[in-house]
């Protein structure tokens, strides 16, 4: 069958479009399909073998934007520290250094959530970090500290504790206003 649009090449893509409930069906050749739709048959993603190794990078890659945007991103985005490029990462699924997480962070958040089901660490911290976190907390005002605890209580659905904290914060705020 020849392409519905150019009537020259063999049709290879069956394209259905539904706009405002109206359905149009077209048989297109590769060229016309690429031109009239955002469909790129020749993108590396589609030709790539879907081995287990790059399944991961495919998941990650799919969050990087459309195929065309990714083409640009691949030439630009790299890690300054270790020289790892985005396409290199897509191939191996491994990062080159700790800075890569920073360098690629714009593409990372959603994809990490899709692999891990979460995007924020809540587990163990190295001791040195715990000390640092404690220092920061110590510098906070009483109200800030209580607000953090309140948030924590709400997340854990400990509503009685949350109510107690909320009242305490209100009382402190009132005091502050009175003192001022």
């Amino acid at each position, binding site marked *: 069958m020849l392409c519905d649009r150019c009537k020259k090449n063999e049709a290879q893509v069956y394209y259905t479009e539904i706009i405002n409930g109206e359905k149009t069906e077209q048989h297109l050749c590769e060229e016309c399909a690429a031109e009239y739709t955002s469909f790129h048959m020749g993108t590396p993603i589609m030709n790539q073998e879907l081995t287990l190794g790059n399944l991961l990078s495919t998941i990650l890659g799919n969050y990087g934007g459309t195929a065309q945007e990714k083409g640009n991103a691949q030439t630009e985005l790299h890690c300054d520290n270790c020289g790892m490029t985005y396409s290199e990462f897509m191939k191996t699924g*491994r*990062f080159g250094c*700790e800075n890569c997480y920073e360098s690629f962070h714009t593409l990372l958040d959603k994809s990490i959530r899709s692999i891990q089901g979460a995007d924020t*660490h809540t587990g163990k911290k190295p001791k*040195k970090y715990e000390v640092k976190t404690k220092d920061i907390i110590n510098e906070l005002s009483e109200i800030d500290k209580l607000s953090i605890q309140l948030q924590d209580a709400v997340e854990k659905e400990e509503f009685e504790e949350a109510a107690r904290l909320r009242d305490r914060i209100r009382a402190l705020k009132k005091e502050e206003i009175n003192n001022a």
Partner: protein
Amino acid sequence: MLKWYKEAANNSDVIISSRVRLARNLKKYPFSIKLNDQQADLLVQEVGEAGKVLVTQTNKKYNFCNVNVLTDIDKIAMVERHVISPLLVEKEQSTGLILSEDEKVSIMINEEDHLRIQSVTGGMNIFEAFKTANLIDDITSELFDFAFSEKYGYLTSCPTNLGTGLRASYMMFLPALTVAGRITQLAEELGKYGIALRGTYGEASKSYGNIYQISNQKTLGSTEKEIIERLNRIVEQVMRQERRQREYLLTNSYDEIEDKVYRSYGILKYAKQISSADAMALLAQLKFGADMELIHIGQNYNIHELMMNIQPGNLQYQLDKAISSTQRDKFRADYIRKALPNIV
């Protein structure tokens, strides 16, 4: 000090061992794929030194070795005993290992991550394994600055290990579910809960002797304790299913199973040559029979230890030389004949 596979343990009819692994990277070096040879040498040397500190801060003795200078037989034997991973063996760069004398604790150096801290216990005892790995992590984090971010937690070479870097796994003996053809379905079900079921030697490996590994897939967003508790709940379910299936088998085909178990014992006891796959299948039958008390070979006899000892690498390790596979099959048959206890 008893090695883990010699310990008497909880639920050992279904659970062979509990294992915890923590992935850590040093801040000062690039990750594995960007690490050059010189940096790899330095990394192995530097972390290797930490072995000495571990000796003084825990009540265990540790040994350090450069893995890439070991003989192939030594390496394969260690993989078969789950001390090191196949990946560590394949690497051409400098790689190292710190191993406790009882083989319960090991640190692989320059595997996929700079450090892979592993701790194992016999039977169902994963919190004990975690406690040990966590202690080793505490001690090593005093010595090195680990790559860590407030948001993502411990930074790892592959994002699938990000966060806690924790992989908790059980080695499970599931003969009844295997016979019932339930393993593939089970693997799919577990996958929905973020739990992976794999063959005996981890990723993409086959299962020998009806032994499988069950482990968490997600490492980010939950605390270490939550990850382990979630895995435990699932594993308890699997254990219950396996036991129910075993009972079902025994009620419905007691005679056939008893016959199979005794035939397995007979072949193992009198064979003149035997391949490791055959031996594993027969030993699995025997273990099943012993666990279900169809056959009595002494309560403390550990069939799983025998399973590891008759693997190609470990056989040659005991002989201290490489031999052809036919010779190996003969030696294996000899070895089993001598090691197998009498029926009580």
